[in-house]
């Protein structure tokens, strides 16, 4: 069966020179594969490196992985609607251990399941899948962007089975594709979600209301008044029925001044928190649906349904268009001057800052 890597994330333990780098990859088999970065780099760019640890985390695909270094947790969300929280130290211990039983005995520290919609006569709808996760470190709430158009906030510290927050407002029945949360910087208490309905919403999580509704495809801010008729954008008259405008990916930068939003039409729109408006829009190609984006300080790194990774600077100038292995990229993470790229095909490629491939990880 063809496997697709939907998520990969770097994480580390220790500090300074003693820090060990790891990368976790979630694939369509529902397994999370954990690799030691040092082993990966030792393997060289041509050899597929097998994972140090394979966790059968979800039924169906793993769609999202997020790490919070301060809390030492790794959260995973998948097609089964579950959101699992794993302890990083347990993962690392199992990954570095050769004992197979220990590897098998890694269990999530907590797990949450998206609520089902109630249907007439007591029936329950399907469990909506978790497409994206975002961790609000300031409050300890894990936001899971679910397939029913609602973003559920789970209190990781209390681990209650009912959501601590529900961000409703996107069109019902259209899945959320992406989420990003501030980690207590300039835009503290902010969560950004992107939906199939073509809008990205910037939420004030304290009030659970959207402060801004953005259409990144057309790069406009949708007024609060036209929110109900969200199909009406642009000049507010012409319905855009035929657009590839869903929001496939969002990302916040470390300082929380900027938010990047990628759309299905191949555009990446930069939102400025300071200005409260769209600042620029860049295009990767109109046939390319953007599926992953990262802000690495000075660059916007994005990729979509074509085998390239794009880099722009914040001014919107294309820096590089770098070929990569997966024909369609779903997973992108940048850390420690490395970029991990995963997608169709079971491999995650790791590129150096200069754009050369340094390692290939073979995910389970």
């Amino acid at each position, binding site marked *: 069966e063809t496997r697709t890597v939907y998520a990969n994330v770097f994480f580390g333990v220790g500090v300074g020179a003693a820090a060990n780098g790891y990368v976790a990859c979630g694939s369509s088999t529902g397994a999370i594969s954990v690799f030691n970065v040092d082993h990966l780099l030792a393997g060289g760019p041509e050899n597929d490196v097998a994972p140090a640890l394979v966790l059968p985390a979800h039924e169906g695909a793993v769609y999202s992985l997020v790490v919070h270094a301060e809390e030492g947790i790794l959260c995973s969300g998948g097609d089964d609607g579950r959101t699992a929280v794993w302890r990083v130290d347990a993962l690392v211990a199992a990954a570095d251990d050769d004992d197979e039983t220990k590897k098998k005995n890694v269990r999530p520290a907590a797990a949450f399941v998206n609520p089902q919609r109630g249907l007439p006569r007591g029936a329950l709808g399907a469990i909506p899948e978790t497409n994206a996760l975002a961790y609000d470190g300031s409050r300890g709430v894990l936001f899971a962007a679910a397939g029913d158009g609602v973003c559920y906030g789970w209190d990781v510290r209390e681990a209650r089975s009912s959501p601590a927050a529900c961000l409703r407002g996107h*069109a019902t029945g259209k*899945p959320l594709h992406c989420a990003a949360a501030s980690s207590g910087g300039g835009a503290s208490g902010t969560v950004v979600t992107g939906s199939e*309905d073509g809008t990205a919403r910037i939420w004030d999580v304290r009030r659970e209301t959207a402060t801004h509704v953005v259409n990144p495809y057309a790069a406009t801010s949708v007024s609060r008044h036209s929110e109900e008729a969200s199909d009406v954008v642009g000049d507010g008259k012409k319905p855009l029925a035929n657009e590839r405008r869903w929001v496939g990916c969002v990302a916040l930068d470390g300082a929380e001044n900027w938010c990047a939003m990628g759309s299905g039409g191949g555009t990446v729109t930069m939102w400025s928190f300071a200005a409260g408006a769209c600042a*620029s829009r860049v295009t990767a*190609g*109109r046939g*390319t649906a953007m599926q992953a984006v990262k802000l690495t300080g000075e660059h916007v790194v994005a990729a979509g349904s074509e085998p390239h990774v794009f880099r722009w600077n914040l001014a919107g100038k294309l820096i590089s268009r770098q070929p990569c292995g997966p024909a369609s990229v779903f997973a992108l993470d940048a850390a420690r001057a490395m970029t991990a790229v995963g997608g169709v095909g079971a491999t995650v490629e790791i590129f150096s800052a200069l754009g050369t491939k340094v390692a290939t990880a073979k995910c389970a």
Partner: protein
Amino acid sequence: LALAEMASDQLDELVGVLGRMRDAADRLASSSGDDDAFREAATDASLLFLELKATNRAALEGVEATRATTAKAKLDLDHKRLELQNVLYEKGHIQKEIRACQDFRSAYDDETIGLCSVAEFKRQAPGEWKEAGDDPHAVMLKRLSHELAERKKLCELEKELEARKRTLQDGIKSRRKFLDGLGNQLKGLKRSTAPLQEHLALPITVEEKRKGAARLLPPPLYVTYTQLAAAREAFDDDFEVHIEGSVADAEALQRKAAAAEEEEARRREEGAAAETVAEAEYKAAGTFAGDEEETRKSKRARISDENEHAVDESDPYTAHPLRVELRLGGASFTFTYLHNLHVVTANVKPREGGASANKGNRRGKGGGDETVDDDLLVNLFPGDTGADTPNIANKLRVAGFEYDRSRRDRPYRWAQHLAGLDFLAPVPVGRAPGADAETGVAKHQQQARVRNVLAALRARMASRSALKSQLRALARCDIDGLAVAKRLEMHPKSQLRSWREITPQAGGTVATGDDGPAGDDAGENDRYREETDAGTVADRLAGHDVQATNTVASDWRHSEKNFWPPSDHGVRTYRALVRAARQSGSAKHRTVPVDVVAEVSVSPEYPQRPPTFALSLERRVPPKPLPASDLDSKDDSVAASKDEDATPGDASNDLRLIEEEVNVRTTALLPTGGEDDILGYCVVRLLQAVDACAECERWGGASDEAVGVRQMRRGRERRKELPPLL
């Protein structure tokens, strides 16, 4: 003594006479004047003379007597001496005789005579033993006489036995005569019943002929034949087993083999003889001359024989003239034994009224059943491609030997097992790359081989004919003609526009025939691969969106490798063109219809290995222009428009999802018993999936409306749910 006394007496008398004569002379001399005294003296003297004369006479007489005595004594002495000589001679003779007797050596020493030992004699004849007493000679004599008696007895016994033997032989001879006659009689009987057999349709004679031919089969084929024939008789199946080929050739071959064997044995004997017997003696013996002539002749024959053998060795594919043919349904499977490789190969041909063994119909098989292809037998059992010889010894004999893949008959492993040839794996089974296949075949080996093979052949033929009928329907682009479509009562809106075979012809591999040895084969293979590569490159240049599908396909193949290695032999590739149905609402947006190209690989293992679909778009759907925004940076839009034609892809996610749906999920959706129709199911599913995607506004996905509260899209790749297949 008497004589000597007498002589001495006479001497004494003579001396006395002489004394007295001297006295008389003295007295005469003294009586010289006295006449009286003279006369007296003269008378005395004359008397004395007389006396002297008497004495003389007596002396002479005495001498005479002595002489006579002496002569007598001498005679006596001579006589005695003669006797002595005789006795001495006799003694010497006797001594010589004794010595001769003592030195006597019999031509047969005691051991060879086999005289019974003393102890045995004592035991067997105690009476005689006692009779003989202590004298060893007597004992020996007794022993000898005992032995003689014994031997006489044995001779009697021998005579008796000889007589018995003769009577028995006579009996045997008469009986044999009867039996010989019986054979002819039986033959006559059989001949006379032939019309009856024909009338009653009894296969006795035919069977007999066949069995006669079977005896000439090489052992592996004999095993195959007997097993198949036994299965046929036991289960009364509807297949036929025949022996094809020239019986005469086989007989000749067998004779040759027997002769070679004899020759070999003789040579070995000769070698042994030559060591012991001196060569000169061997030659001197005139009686051997004829024999020698013969051996020389046979040596010549052997040399020529060896030459022939050498010719045989050079061609590894020399086959035994006899073949076993299994006729099953519309196909005939021929099993051939290659001596030099010691493997059995199997070949399949369409059955043409029993006429086979004709090389002419190899290529043109127009009249035959369509279900019969060369690759019908490939991977009949998992991993058994028959591409290389299962006999590892071949590889050791000729380094790097590889079976000529252009040959139609291939050494499938099941054929070896059917023939009772079990070759050892070259590596420990667990470590062998085809360990699954090994265990699979081993399992089959433990079971009823013939029935399994026959069942597999039947299943393969059935599925192949189903496949062919589906392919025919597809070639007509007649979806409703598929058995599946009738069953599903389903009418996809998308159209199958064309379906044609694009299987790359493997260059000269088939045409050139036996190029022979190993290296060429590999080269051939490379060329084959290169050609396919070139094909895909050409596709890419032609603007097809193959990059994504390529990756998918390779990954697919890769993951499948764990299952069993696919065979490159007999995989057929088809190119299907599916036109997506136009959407009702948005016709004005799209003037060019969307065509999806599917490259379908159908493996010879169909349906065990389902067909695989690799999808691409015939031509790209032009993307709509972006809504105007003053935020766009200038150079970026230029770059984007420049890249426009190079970007492979909007539809890749959707196409990949369809591929997954068709290739993987459809197999799980099959109803039981529908395995043979999997190609049809896959095609229908492909059309359904294209339908579903065409209902979106645009390829590459776009937002579509939620129906009620049902979620239409799911997951990161915006998977659209397809209607159920069944």
